[in-house]
């Protein structure tokens, strides 16, 4: 069954992508736990003995859950643990932003700063983007009740909107208003994409799987874009919160809607 294949695709992509990301984040923190403790302290949310214990325990939990996801062992439970961690991070970052604190988010701390994807060779980055675009195309070409040429048109429109945004972002060092404009364009195109899927599949056949699948594709795209725009330490902001939300949504989806065989 083709739709079953899509679910497995989604599951595997999430498993490997987020698993790798969490192992990477844990490795950075374990490299210099004292620095991570300082970062945690800056948030001003935990004090006393909980601070060193938390700074020691959080990277361990990230590593355990990330490894389980990567190895494909007890993946549903691992997705639950990661959801919990992400909820905690989002709450902490939200609280810090509400207090107008300007600080490094201490999310990765690998080699002194976040692992900026601009450090990757451009060819590799282009290949990754092309792979994502291809995945996007095949995932959105699912059979439906709508006539086939229409599907090709909508898929092409989605692809073109996202691709244009990326080429523009990668080609320039844009001013702040251009960056925000392009972020808005990407957000609007993503929402339009969701609306097209809704229109295509109809409200009555709406499944969280469709939204989850879109979140899977949009999540990494947002992630790539935000890292492109933030060289060096990742300053706490809407971008870091958005990135975590982009990971939280598929994680929650997999906890509650994941394939039965992945218990």
């Amino acid at each position, binding site marked *: *069954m083709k*739709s*079953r294949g*899509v*679910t497995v695709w989604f599951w595997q992509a999430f498993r490997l992508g987020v698993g790798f990301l969490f192992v990477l984040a844990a490795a950075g923190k*374990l*490299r*210099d*736990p*004292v620095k991570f*403790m300082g970062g945690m302290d800056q948030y001003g949310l935990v004090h006393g*003995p909980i*601070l*060193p*214990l938390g*700074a*020691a*325990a*959080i*990277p*361990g*939990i*990230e*590593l*355990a*859950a990330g490894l*389980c996801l990567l190895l494909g062992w*007890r993946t*549903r*439970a*691992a997705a*639950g*643990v990661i959801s*919990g961690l992400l909820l905690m991070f989002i709450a902490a970052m939200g609280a810090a932003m509400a207090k107008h604190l300007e600080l490094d988010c201490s999310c990765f701390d690998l080699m002194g700063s976040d692992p900026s994807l601009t450090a990757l060779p451009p060819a590799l980055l282009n290949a990754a983007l092309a792979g994502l675009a291809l995945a996007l195309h095949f995932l959105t070409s699912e059979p439906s009740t709508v006539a086939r040429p229409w599907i090709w048109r909508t898929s092409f429109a989605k692809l073109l909107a996202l691709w244009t945004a990326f080429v523009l972002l990668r080609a320039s060092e844009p001013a702040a208003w251009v960056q925000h404009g392009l972020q808005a364009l990407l957000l609007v195109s993503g929402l339009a994409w969701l609306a097209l899927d809704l229109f295509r599949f109809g409200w009555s*056949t709406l*499944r*969280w*799987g469709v939204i989850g699948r879109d979140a899977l594709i949009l999540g990494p795209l947002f992630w790539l874009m935000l890292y492109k725009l933030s060289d060096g330490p990742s300053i706490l902001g809407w971008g870091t919160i958005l990135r975590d939300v982009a990971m939280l949504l598929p994680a929650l989806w997999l*906890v*509650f*809607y*994941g*394939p*039965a065989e992945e*218990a």
Partner: protein
Amino acid sequence: MASNIQFRRPGWRSLAWALAMVLWGALMGLGLNQVSSVGINMTIALGLDQAPSTGSGQAQPEAKR
């Protein structure tokens, strides 16, 4: 639509595994800190090194009562 995309409430077993993962990870994190030379020194961070030692001539908090 796919029959395998449906709500399934996580069972107690999943919850137990998640809890075990948290405990195991936390212990592993604490352990790695103890064996690492750049790790957080828990004795200092938790203020355990400032506990008054016995027989040094300083009064114990309990002895004050």
